[in-house]
């Protein structure tokens, strides 16, 4: 039995010896060419002149392509066909690819790309939320609205009310491996593409369209990514298509990788949001009515913005029952990078909105913020007697009509408060703040309830392909991609346990569209849920065939054939798995099978905002303590305590790794990671020198992470839960802790925007101290 154990990452040995290959490490065929885009320096306008002769004349340049040179589709959009690979007369953001340089080396291509003479008749760009609202520049016909009850009336009737506005910055993925692709022409016009992508099928699809061939003419392979985080769900399309087109044209292998600065300037990021809120509540802190207006800055193309904005609406409740609620969502079109998928996919933004409300309400009432949150929690799942439900009545219905049947946070909050010593530390922080004015401390608590499943229901499917060879070794393939989350390892554990064999007998192979077709992106945290089940189905098919054969041969019931610890037991006979495989092969039993899985129970109407978008919810909670230097705004995380629900974890070591990494990335989003565009629409923070992701020195000094001892109440693979995205939102506790520390500097509510950089913290302290 190999599931639910802490096996190391499948490629760990390759990684520590520097031999794990990413796209740019793959040896390229002789004569390979390298590509670079020429980019728009203007946010919005019409190209009036394009002189590419100096580019063509540059050393090492083999070809230069514009939109007119593309033989078939000029489109790399994953959704609305509104994203040309190369600009077609107009430009829509600074960084938009206008032409493609094909050269003998990466540097030759990049140097040449700077030499074009491009003239653009500039128009006034739409950059900000205000400008987009004023211009009615949006995707979809108008705002989306999800509502229940009469929020406005409930707020009006409530004894107390808070309202405010929150600005919430975007986030650069900063996958350490930049976008990359390699296309190698095959015989008969076929194309092999190696791509650093979370979505090989989408790459296959877009490349086929660009080459004017059926999808069967394109094979896409992805062994691993050096980080993805959503940034490689659609953003790799451009490179793969460019490589394929250039490879077709030149007959030579073509590789493209973005330099870091280009990567940050060209590719989409997390959506930044503005959220306005009004909340009515009683003196006990019970919410009566809440209204949100969410403004999402989507950039120039639609990409995945609609489902991202939907998910923000679907997480506007987070862990709280909102009896009357109205959520309005504006998806705004701006002349900036096309905002895209990023870990949490809008969920974090929605959640920050309600956590801000909770923070504000607690401040207004002078109530303990943890207690306030617990009062407003959804009802506990059946069988959780750890805490008495407050509030009475059935409080389990989300604003979109899905019942919360697996709510774990009452018990989890109890456990975390206990293990983190909350009560004593709260008192200690308050005492410290009463005595010190230069350094203030703060505590922040954030619960997370995150819906698991793609909200586009048809994406909730997965396939697998498993072979057992006659020596008993197993070849495993499925549609999921490996970006560091340990998916391959987890899925291999499933296969090993189905056959009762050691993990070493299972070979994990690169994701390959020729082995498993029509896959969904490895996204929405669904990787192991979906692919684990598909692999299980494939393994079980083979196992049943072997069992039936052995039962007949050894005169026993099929149910009596057991696969355990590398051996197979049939009637009185006992043999190794390898012997069993050999016998089955000689008995002409097929030892290869596909497997398929589709998530049950989900059904969802995104226009009406009703149904069951999620198979289940994953939970977590975090308590963060910070110290703030009130003279400079500089701050530091002193301690973080986390309890996270991974169901019956398939691999606790990998899952805890996801939790730690997610928390730190989430905290980075809300504290140090600031994206700055200037008035011309140029991104000024396009390298790690100006864009600050957390470093080793920023890790909390005390970092206690534990998994909640539970199992999924739904039938998932070995009752585990998805763990890719949910822990990201635990980082909200760091932002809340900063708010708490700032609040100790005066009487007013700090209303801290995000990211709460040292500068913003310092400003907020100034406002509080000046009493404005």
């Amino acid at each position, binding site marked *: 039995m190999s599931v639910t154990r802490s096996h190391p*990452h499948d490629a760990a040995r390759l*990684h520590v010896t520097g031999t794990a290959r990413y796209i740019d490490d793959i040896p390229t065929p002789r004569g390979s060419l390298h590509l670079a885009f020429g980019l728009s320096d203007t946010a919005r306008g019409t190209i009036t002149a394009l002189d590419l002769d100096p580019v063509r004349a540059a050393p090492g340049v083999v070809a230069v392509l514009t939109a007119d040179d593309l033989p078939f589709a000029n489109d790399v959009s994953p959704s609305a066909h509104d994203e040309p690979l190369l600009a077609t007369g107009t430009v829509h953001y600074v960084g938009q690819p206008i032409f493609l340089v094909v050269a003998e080396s990466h540097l030759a291509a990049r140097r040449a790309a700077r030499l074009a003479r491009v003239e653009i008749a500039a128009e006034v760009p739409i950059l900000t939320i205000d400008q987009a609202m004023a211009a009615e520049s949006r995707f979809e016909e108008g705002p989306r609205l999800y509502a229940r009850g009469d929020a406005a009336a409930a707020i009006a009737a409530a004894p107390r009310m808070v309202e405010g506005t929150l600005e919430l910055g975007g986030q650069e993925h900063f996958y*350490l491996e930049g976008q990359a692709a390699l296309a190698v022409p095959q015989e008969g016009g076929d194309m092999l593409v190696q791509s650093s992508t979370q979505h090989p099928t989408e790459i296959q699809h877009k490349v086929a369209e660009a080459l004017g061939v059926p999808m069967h003419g394109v094979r896409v392979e992805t062994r691993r990514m050096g*980080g993805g985080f959503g940034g490689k769900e659609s953003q790799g399309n451009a490179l793969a298509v460019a490589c394929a087109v250039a490879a077709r044209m030149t007959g030579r292998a073509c590789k493209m990788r973005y330099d870091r600065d280009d990567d940050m300037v060209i590719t989409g990021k997390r959506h930044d949001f503005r959220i306005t809120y009004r909340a009515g509540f009683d003196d006990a802190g019970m919410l009566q009515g809440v209204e949100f207006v969410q403004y999402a800055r989507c950039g120039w193309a639609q990409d995945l913005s609609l489902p991202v904005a939907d998910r923000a609406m679907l997480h506007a409740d987070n862990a709280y029952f909102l009896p009357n609620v109205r959520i309005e969502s504006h998806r705004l079109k701006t002349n900036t990078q096309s905002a895209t998928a990023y870990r949490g996919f809008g969920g974090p933004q929605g959640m920050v909105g309600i956590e801000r409300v909770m923070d504000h309400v607690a401040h207004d009432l002078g109530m303990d913020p943890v207690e306030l949150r617990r009062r407003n929690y959804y009802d506990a799942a059946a069988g959780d007697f750890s805490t008495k439900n407050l509030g009475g009545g059935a409080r389990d219905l989300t604003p979109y009509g899905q019942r919360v049947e697996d709510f774990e946070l009452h018990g989890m909050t109890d456990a975390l408060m206990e293990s983190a010593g909350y009560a004593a530390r709260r008192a200690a922080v308050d005492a410290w703040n009463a005595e010190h004015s230069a350094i203030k401390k703060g505590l922040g608590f954030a619960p997370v309830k995150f819906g698991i499943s793609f909200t586009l229901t048809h994406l909730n499917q997965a396939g697998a392909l498993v072979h057992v060879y006659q020596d008993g070794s197993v070849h495993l393939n499925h549609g999921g991609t490996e970006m560091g989350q340990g998916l391959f390892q987890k899925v291999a554990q499933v296969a090993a346990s189905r056959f009762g064999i050691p993990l070493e007998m299972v070979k994990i192979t690169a994701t390959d569209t020729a082995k498993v077709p029509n896959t969904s992106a490895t996204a929405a945290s669904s990787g192991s849920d979906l692919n684990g089940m598909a692999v299980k189905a494939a393994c079980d098919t083979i196992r049943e065939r072997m069992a039936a054969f052995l039962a007949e041969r050894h005169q026993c019931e099929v149910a009596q054939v057991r696969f355990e610890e590398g051996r197979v037991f049939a009637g009185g006979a006992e043999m190794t798995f390898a012997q069993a495989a050999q016998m089955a092969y000689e008995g002409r039993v097929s030892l290869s099978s596909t497997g398929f899985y589709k998530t049950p129970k989900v059904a969802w109407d995104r226009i009406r905002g009703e149904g069951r978008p999620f198979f289940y919810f994953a939970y977590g909670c975090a308590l963060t303590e910070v110290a703030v230097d009130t003279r400079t705004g500089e701050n530091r995380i002193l301690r973080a305590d986390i309890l996270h629900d991974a169901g019956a974890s398939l691999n606790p070591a990998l899952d805890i*790794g996801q939790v*730690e990494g997610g928390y730190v990335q989430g905290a980075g989003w809300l504290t140090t990671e600031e994206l700055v565009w200037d008035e011309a629409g140029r991104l000024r923070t396009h390298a790690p020198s100006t864009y600050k992701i957390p470093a080793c020195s920023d890790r909390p000094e005390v*970092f206690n992470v534990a998994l909640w001892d539970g199992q999924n109440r739904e039938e998932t693979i070995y009752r585990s839960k998805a763990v890719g995205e949910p822990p990201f939102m635990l980082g909200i506790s760091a932002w809340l802790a900063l708010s708490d520390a700032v609040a100790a500097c005066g009487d007013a509510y700090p209303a801290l925007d995000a990211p709460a950089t040292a500068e913003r913290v310092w400003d907020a302290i100034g406002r509080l101290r000046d009493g404005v």
Partner: protein
Amino acid sequence: MSKIHVSTTINGDTAEFLCDPRETLLDVLRDRLGLTGAKEGCGTGDCGACSVTLDGRLVCSCLVLGAEAEGREIATVEGIAPGEELHPLQRKFIEHAALQCGICTPGILVAAKALLEKNPDPTETEVRYWLAGNLCRCTGYDKIIRAVMDAAAEMREAA
């Protein structure tokens, strides 16, 4: 542009190559010598993914010219393991699950090894600040620090 001939030592073996005077040591290692363990994460000295040592000193190979390798000794991640056996740092990184996507790992191992050679008994704070120039987007760093501390302890015992 005419190429420069460079003779150097890499992981204890002599090596010779021709390079463009503008070419970085990172590009030379990756593109000319096939040593792709050092990665390019930024190309500007800000991420540490390209870390190697030059005469024992930790450097970002993206900020060193290939031509500067002349007569020097370069050590890369490929040379950390003394033969088939893994170096204690490598073993501890596997044991502590101190990597996810793994692309930062080579640079971090080179940097950590350089630290332990200077300071076999670092405090946790010293490790954290020494590695502050090596970005990792996946792990949140906790397991990395634990792995380095644990490897240091084991190496002290063995010494």
